[in-house]
């Protein structure tokens, strides 16, 4: 397999492929390094292999950090084990584009994953690696979507699981976690408090695989599959621009990493293998989306800072409410380097974003998707998007998980069960 070792993003120190996440020399984050030169041969053959693979993320096993390949005897069998994620729809959203005066907008609907968010991608990869490393217990700090996914993967694979969440999380996300039979722990505090606690617990329980702490280098790699799918679904081409929500910044940076990796390998149409030269296609502009009530990355972007000052979150977009984003500096660097931006929108704009997406595409997203859609609208209004651009909007989660966000935004009429009552307009109007 192509996976090679763990490497510090800051000082390049190398580590073995174990449950490690921090560089002991400089405290920088560790990431997975690959040696694709030895495994990638003819590009046409590699594309055919991907296309002939299972209808889930394991079709991209060559680019994922598993020592033994997909977590089953074959890629085909892997598609039937556990909770395979991925291969979610990429939908051309002409009505949304028209509403915003844009030409070509696509919606990547990752609510169509097994537990209805993109988290199934990262958890599938982290848990597969955890099993390779011999862990029997999985755990996480979560604002909800990750909680759902870890609990469900634990159930599917027969692993014990511990899920730590802020005690004030949305009821739907608590219910959709507890149902899987996990050990659910509500912590009095913010997500950042939960995260700090889990970082400490991780040191005390080295026999646990905290998917977003000690397994984080592997977990983060799962997000690259969103980029692979978008490129494959666009016919091995890149979009011109991606709008992606930012919480920790991991998804945002890993989507760009996936596009870059495939470009360098020659999998993107028009790209030459970087090692032999050739004009590589331009990498997409990356626009990050945050809620004003928790916008450490957007604030640092606007101020021209290279690091984020942490904030205390206060927003309806709880799945994005990380006040102390781990990948903040890398997200800032990417937004600037790619010619994108990081923007923030108000809670009211988030509600409008949810409504706009629902009413132009039929996709009901959670608050995080409202943030992303509202930022797309903001960019369009500001004139940042050129007329000929192909834009991909990354929708990461399901609206049924944050129903409170749409409460009070429309009315229903109650009538008697008679034609006269319906036609007579004698109806009781109720705000829902």
């Amino acid at each position, binding site marked *: 397999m192509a996976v090679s070792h763990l490497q510090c993003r*800051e000082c390049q120190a190398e580590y073995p492929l174990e449950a490690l996440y921090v560089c002991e020399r400089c*405290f920088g984050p560790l990431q997975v390094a690959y040696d694709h030169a030895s495994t990638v041969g003819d590009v046409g053959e590699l594309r055919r292999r991907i296309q002939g693979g299972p209808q889930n993320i394991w079709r991209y096993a060559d680019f994922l950090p598993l020592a033994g390949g997909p977590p089953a005897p074959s890629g085909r069998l892997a598609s039937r084990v556990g909770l395979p994620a991925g291969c979610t729809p990429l939908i051309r959203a002409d009505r949304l584009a028209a509403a915003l005066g844009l030409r070509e907008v696509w919606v990547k609907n990752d609510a169509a994953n097994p537990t209805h968010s993109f988290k199934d991608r990262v958890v599938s990869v982290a848990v597969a690696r955890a099993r390779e490393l011999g862990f029997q217990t999985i755990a996480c*700090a979560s604002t909800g979507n990750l909680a759902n996914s870890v609990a469900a993967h634990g159930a599917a694979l027969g692993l014990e699981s511990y899920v730590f969440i802020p005690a004030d999380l949305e009821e739907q996300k608590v219910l959709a976690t507890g149902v899987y039979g996990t050990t659910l722990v509500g912590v009095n505090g913010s997500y950042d408090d939960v995260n700090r606690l889990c970082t400490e617990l991780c040191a005390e329980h080295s026999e646990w695989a905290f998917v977003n702490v000690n397994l984080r280098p592997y977990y983060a790699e799962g997000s690259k599959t969103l980029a692979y799918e978008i490129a494959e679904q666009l016919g091995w081409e890149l979009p011109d621009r991606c709008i992606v929500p930012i919480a920790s910044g991991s998804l945002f940076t890993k989507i760009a990493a996936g596009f870059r990796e495939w470009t360098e390998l020659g999998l993107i149409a028009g790209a030459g293998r970087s090692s032999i030269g050739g004009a590589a296609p331009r990498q997409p502009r990356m626009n990050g989306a945050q809620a004003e009530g928790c916008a450490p990355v957007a604030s640092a972007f606007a101020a021209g800072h290279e690091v984020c000052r942490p904030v205390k979150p206060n927003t309806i977009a709880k799945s994005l409410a990380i006040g102390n984003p*781990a990948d903040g500096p890398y997200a800032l660097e990417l937004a600037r380097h790619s010619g994108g931006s990081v923007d923030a929108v108000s809670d009211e704009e988030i509600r409008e974003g949810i409504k706009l997406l629902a009413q132009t595409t039929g996709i009901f997203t959670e608050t995080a998707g409202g943030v992303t859609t509202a930022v797309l609208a903001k960019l369009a209004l500001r004139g940042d998007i050129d007329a000929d651009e192909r834009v991909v909007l990354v929708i990461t989660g399901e609206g049924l998980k944050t129903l409170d966000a749409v409460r009070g935004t429309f009315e229903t009429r109650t009538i008697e069960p008679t034609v006269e009552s319906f036609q007579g307009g004698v109806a009781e109007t109720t705000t829902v």
Partner: protein
Amino acid sequence: MMTVLVKIPTQLRAAAGGEAEAQVDGATVQEVLNGLFQRHAELRARISDDDGSLRRFVNVYVAGEDIRFLDGLATPVADGAEVTILPAVAGGR
């Protein structure tokens, strides 16, 4: 002089003689860290940049609160307080 309990993350314990925590004197976070560095010189370069500020992937908490919400390295510490050093790279959501 205040005495506080410094909790050392696993990644730094080898550089701290294997200790998981240390009792250190000091009235501010800076003084406490200096006291820690005097005892374990190797820790200084792991935690601090050349200019003496914290490395960007190091978080320090006093009684559970991130010092960036307080007065940074100048944050006062009470007698018996807990100062926790942790890597900043955890988290997803």
